[in-house]
């Protein structure tokens, strides 16, 4: 196999701040937008960018996620000359170790990358919601003769300390990189999407692996080291929707964003489709007693009650007289008769028989997983 650019998706994280939603599944497998899982976004982006080989590094509660990725069929990544590999940590002649950090997850799969004979690698997170054509980013990388290109987005200055912050000149050449700085020097945030020229990445990973003091992390170790070695790091300016859905609140907000017909994500546009697994669901049923407004309803859902400004997943049921407002109802959850829920996420297969009222800036989470 010989590919110009291959993709590596870091999908091993737990996502503790998603609370019980990630009790049994890794964060990339969390449901989003009525019919998707978060990892559908990077995987569809990979497919839509014309990339034929992708490795997905998984670690935390990986069974469901690994099953979901399978052969890559749902994203068309199982075609001739295509390769979708699930890459959990493994034992080798030199021993066995968990992935110690983002960089280590790639380092432990250098053999996989070598076999693809790639020139470039795009490294992605498995937990961001956005649409992006990485082939445009590769063009940018090549025309700048860059060693590393980091996709960057403007964020509100107040939020900048949460991100890796980039200081770049007018030609997008990066002068400084600050990982989660207390005093950010710019509002230009790394999206955790990197294109590396592979030869350079390979050397950097091997060096980093030898360093016992390193956290083996791209943001904390690899990028600052390369910058210090005067390598050419460029910031690729991304305009559009991008959201890290790391918390219950941000997951809810990203779902609510979809209800705005002008949402920049353009999830509903037929261009640059997001692919997902088929669920063999029945058609959506909206009963005579139902009232549905300003909502996104996936196949298999049954609505008998009132649904306002909400996202309803497949096989979810809103019974008669129930009132659902500003909510995200995950697959096969049931909102019982007469129950009122507001500003909440209801976990998969959860039966809600009592009112749940969250606040817009502090949404409620009710999840059957909590009881187990």
């Amino acid at each position, binding site marked *: 196999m010989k590919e110009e650019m291959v993709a590596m998706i870091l999908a091993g994280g737990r996502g503790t701040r998603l609370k019980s939603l990630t009790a049994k599944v890794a964060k990339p497998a969390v449901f989003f937008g*009525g*019919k998707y899982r978060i990892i559908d976004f990077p995987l569809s982006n990979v497919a839509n960018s014309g990339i034929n080989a992708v490795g997905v590094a998984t670690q935390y509660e990986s069974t469901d996620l690994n099953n979901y990725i399978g052969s890559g069929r749902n994203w068309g990544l199982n075609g001739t000359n295509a390769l979708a590999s699930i890459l959990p940590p493994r034992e080798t002649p030199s021993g066995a170790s968990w992935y110690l950090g983002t960089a280590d997850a790639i380092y432990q799969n250098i053999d996989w990358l070598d076999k693809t004979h790639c020139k470039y690698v795009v490294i992605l997170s498995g937990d961001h919601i956005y649409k992006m054509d990485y082939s445009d980013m590769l063009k940018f990388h090549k025309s700048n003769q860059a060693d590393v290109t980091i996709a960057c987005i403007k964020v509100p200055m107040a939020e900048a300390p949460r991100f890796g912050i980039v200081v770049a000149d007018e030609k997008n050449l990066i002068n400084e990189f600050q990982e989660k700085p207390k005093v950010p020097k710019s509002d230009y945030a790394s999206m955790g999407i990197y294109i590396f020229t592979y030869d350079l990445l390979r050397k950097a990973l091997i060096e980093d692996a030898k360093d016992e003091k390193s956290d083996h992390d791209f943001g904390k170790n690899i990028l600052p080291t390369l910058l210090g070695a005067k390598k050419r790091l460029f910031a690729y300016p991304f305009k559009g929707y991008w959201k890290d859905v790391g918390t219950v609140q941000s997951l809810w907000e990203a779902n609510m964003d979809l209800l705005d017909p002008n949402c920049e994500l353009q999830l509903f546009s037929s261009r640059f489709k997001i692919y997902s697994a088929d669920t063999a669901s029945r*058609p*959506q049923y909206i009963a005579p007693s139902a009232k*549905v407004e300003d909502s996104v309803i*996936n*196949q298999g859902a049954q609505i008998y009650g009132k649904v306002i400004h909400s996202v309803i997943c497949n096989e979810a049921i809103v019974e008669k007289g129930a009132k659902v407002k500003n909510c995200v109802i995950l697959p096969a959850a049931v909102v019982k008769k007469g129950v009122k829920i507001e500003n909440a996420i209801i976990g998969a297969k959860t039966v809600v028989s009592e009112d749940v009222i969250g606040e817009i800036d502090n949404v409620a989470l009710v999840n059957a997983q909590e009881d187990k």
Partner: protein
Amino acid sequence: MAYKVAGIIDCFGNPEFGPLTQHRPMASTSFLGRYSFIDFPLSNFLNSGILNMGILCQNHIRSLSKHVGNGRSWISNTKRGALEILYDEPNVANPAYNTDIADIIENKVFFKDVHPDYVIIVSPNFVYEADFSKLLDEHVASGDRITLLYTHVENGLRNHFIGADKIGISSRGKVNRMETNMGDEDSGDISMGCLILDYPMLESLVEYARSTSSFFNLDDCLKYLAPTVMIRTAKFEGYVRDFDSLPHYLEYSLELLDRKVFDSLFQEDWPLHTRTYDTVPVQCRAGSNVTNSYLANGSVIEGKVTGSILGRNVRIEKGAEVINSVIGNDVVISEGTHVENAVIDRDAQVLHVAEVIGSKEEPIYIARGDIV
């Protein structure tokens, strides 16, 4: 299933829905928004553990092959199983000679490859869910060579199952008479166009048909033989409809809006599989008013929809009203228009006229891609 079984879908002589089946066989015509009729027999076969399926295709192969593709949606093991479209190329331009018998002869290599012990032949116009593994076990236990599946209709033969085969049943449970239902009696037993037989028996039926008339199809053959050959009957107790005309297409589709009827057709733990299109969930925008309807993914609703079935990617604009209608994929119902008792074929647009109104007995039909 201990036996090797070939599941055969006979698309010869299926009823036509006027202009709706001008470009497609009845089998791949849209049903309940997200399905095609052929999804029922294919899913019945899959759920019954049948691995090898053949579709006897009379004409319009494009539409059929597009829907079933490589059959992957209905095959549980793609190495051991296969779905093939059996097409009688030499006779397609020769309607009198283009019979299911001729098609079986033309495609005898299919039967040679599959080498079935038993063959189950079904007609896609009869919509029902049945476990063929159970029916086959009963057939084998009976020691009879042919089993015919039938439904008893207490009242309704004057208006329903017109053109289907009415059978007489002897005291020993065998078919002693078979004739076309002309609606002269209101009660009786109707053949569901489903035969279970051993493969040598199918071969002798084909041979008999060939030696009798080149124009003979399987159904003619059975009618001829019914009084003399032992045909065992098996009574089917569930929901079954014969979709036999355009008015009935609308009537039976809308009848499923009654959830009792729906639940009698759609059995639990009996998933109905179809081709996936990766369409986004439905958007019911602010100001929309949907009640008593089935929707399919990809649709955007801003107007009023009641008592209707929408296909994929349908757009109902502001102030538009859709009542008691079946709307095909990718249809646009424009601002302020009123659609009632209509069947609107895919890609059509109701744009210039204020009203498209038919009656239940004579639904108005708008052809594929038409702009009115």
